[in-house]
């Protein structure tokens, strides 16, 4: 695998840079978004970044090629569960506050 330098899709660093880009965009959205659903979407981008990193390392540096795939599969399942819980929480918050803006959920603020 070392002696194939050329092909662009067989280079580990490109996948790592793509994953870093996804993580950076997700962090930006997590800071910048004001609604809970927007934050959730940015969180999904960060999940995708972690999955891409694991898959890239699994493809290029792991002996057992199934470990990363199974790990990413579990990440997908947990992300689906997390999205279901988070969205039902958001719906419950909307029923109580009539808004999903994060700045208005300040009932505990003194």
């Amino acid at each position: 695998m070392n002696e194939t330098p050329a092909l662009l899709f067989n280079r580990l660093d490109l996948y790592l840079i793509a994953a870093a880009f996804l993580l950076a965009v997700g962090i930006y959205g997590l800071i910048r978004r004001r609604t809970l659903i927007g934050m959730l979407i940015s969180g999904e981008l960060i999940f995708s970044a972690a999955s891409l990193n694991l898959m890239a390392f699994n493809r290029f540096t792991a002996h057992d090629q199934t470990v990363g795939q199974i790990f990413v599969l579990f990440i997908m399942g947990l992300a689906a569960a997390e999205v279901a819980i988070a969205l039902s929480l958001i719906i419950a918050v909307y029923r109580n506050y009539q808004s999903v803006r994060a700045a208005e959920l300040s009932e505990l603020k003194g």
Partner: protein
Amino acid sequence: MNPFPAANLLLTGIFLFCLATLAAGALLAVFSKRLIRSVCGLAVCCFGLAGLYYFLHSPFLAMMEILVYVGAVCVTIVFAIMLAEPEEPSDAETSGASMMWASAALGVSLAVFCSLAWLGSQTKWTYPVRLDNDGSIAAIGIALLTTYSLPFELISLALLVAILGALVLARTGRSLPSETNIPVANGEPKWPGTNGARRRVDGTSSDESLELPDVVTTASAPHGSHAHRAAKASQPREESQPV
């Protein structure tokens, strides 16, 4: 050796297209004003990610990415957007604090991206000399049923608990029908569990307290007397439906 000499060029083009799809989807998911476009950006990003999974020798995960993320997660977020109708504030975009937050977020994300990209491209990764298996779907299935059988069962349990928790969380906290704009013409709206919620809110269960949240029905049914409406409220729900 290569029967089709332009294959590598074609593959590189497809790979770059997948990368561009990923980047464009991520940028659209974060920078668009309306949340529904943001969800569409997430779906586009997941398609690009599925293409990258395909290039990483895992067509199974590419399919699962499209199936789970585009088919389930994005559709669920779209449902939540339709239920919660979030409005993105547009007047606060030009204020000083908002611009400060935007520049701070941009600085943080740029620092994260540059440092991680530099770290990933500068490190000398060690590549394995031999592989234990080929990572095919058969190998994944064997590993899921032998080595990873306990996490496989546990994640099914986690999904079950998540579904039940989501149902419970979305079920409770429903407001009374007289406080929302649910049309209540000709009697009561057809909501399950309304009588129980009313009794809990009012504290008592007499006929007088049953009339208290019925303010909306007074305007919509002006011909009914008090006693008639009280008798109507205590009757079964099918009686109050419009005929």
